[in-house]
């Protein structure tokens, strides 16, 4: 979405207004909210599932949920797009959890983590996301393994064991990459004033 800070502010104000009107069951506002945010949220879900049907279902469930619970959005506490993204991501991860339970016996098979070649890699996306929010230094300061593990977990929803298989590293190693990477990222981002 927008990277220009002034435009971001404007967009956030607009999204907050639409959420408030959606909480009053204004279908027109809800339609506009969908129009503005669904391409971003669909991309988030599609990256995680790599399968349109599952991503569409999560998007549908999420927006039905948003329609019913827009009133629980508290503007002072988080940015509107962050709130919406968290709803979609949590639903994706729930869905993945269900699948893991269902396919536990096939767990050893190599998973198809195939992404079209022209798509940016998770690492490239992590960097460009960081650049957009002026936190590129923080992401670049991570060690290569940490960066890779965090990017794959975040954009593609890989679990610890999937990371271990995908990166061909022992489980303990990827777990510590994730843990240390997150700690480092938090310390750097908080110094940069990203969080309140």
């Amino acid at each position: 979405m927008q990277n220009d800070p002034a435009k971001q502010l404007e967009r956030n104000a607009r999204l907050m207004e639409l959420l408030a009107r959606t909480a009053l069951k204004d279908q027109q506002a809800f339609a506009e909210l969908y129009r503005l945010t669904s391409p971003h949220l669909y991309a988030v879900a599609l990256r995680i599932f790599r399968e349109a049907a599952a991503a569409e279902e999560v998007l549908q469930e999420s927006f039905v949920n948003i329609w019913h619970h827009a009133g629980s959005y508290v503007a002072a506490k988080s940015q509107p797009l962050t709130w919406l993204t968290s709803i979609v991501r949590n639903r994706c991860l729930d869905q993945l959890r269900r699948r893991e339970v269902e396919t536990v016996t096939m767990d050893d098979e190599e998973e198809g983590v195939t992404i079209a070649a022209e798509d940016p890699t998770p690492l490239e996306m992590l960097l460009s996301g960081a650049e957009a929010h002026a936190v590129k230094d923080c992401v670049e300061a991570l060690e290569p393994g940490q960066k890779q593990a965090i990017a794959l977990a975040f954009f593609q929803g890989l679990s610890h064991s999937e990371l271990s298989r995908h990166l061909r590293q022992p489980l303990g190693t990827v777990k510590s990459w994730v843990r240390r990477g997150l700690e480092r990222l938090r310390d750097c981002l908080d110094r940069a004033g990203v969080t309140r």
Partner: protein
Amino acid sequence: MNLRDPERADALAGEYVLGTLRGRARQRFERLARTERIVADAVRGWEERLLPLAEALPAIAPPSRVWAAILARIRSAPAAPRARSLLWTPVGWWRGLALVGLVTSLALAVALLKPAPPEGTLVVVLAGQDAKPALVATSARASRYLTVKAIAPVAVAPDRALELWMLPAQGNPRSLGLVSMVSPAGVARIELPAAADQALQNIPALAISLEPAGGSPTGLPTGPVLYTGPVQRLY
């Protein structure tokens, strides 16, 4: 989890938002975040740190059927007998009522069909993306015809047609044929494969898509879905 250890709470919150906290641990943590302020705050902190990074993803427009399905779901309704009187009560009344969307659309259907339709009527209020009702389809439950009436101007280019679809709970949309409005009355009559009661059994919603003149060449909607609405049974 030991809540006296804020470091631990924060580390778990980070893995939760990143997505590497999985399985039962994830569910337990989620429950904890609902009741423990310190956990909820840690989660929000991580959401603010990480989720904006997702904005780098190239946006992808979802297919229009997703919105059609959302609309059908927030409007679809089991009949609520008091709907009509509730429509005009103060705005705050519905807070916390999960069924409000359904009640509103049913009340709207009833209001549009004054005087009240006879017993045993099926009603579908079809609305566009702007949520404004554009057409109303009605049928007696034993009738083999559906009457579609435009209640807002519906303009179609000469080389295009409107096609009416049944959206089953599962599986592909099934065509009911073209909606050709005889202006200025704006009423179309569509033959159903069986009596309405039976033909629309297990059909939660109808939709109208824009197709080439003569209708969809593939048997499935090919153009944008312009209007959707839930099937309401007033009996």
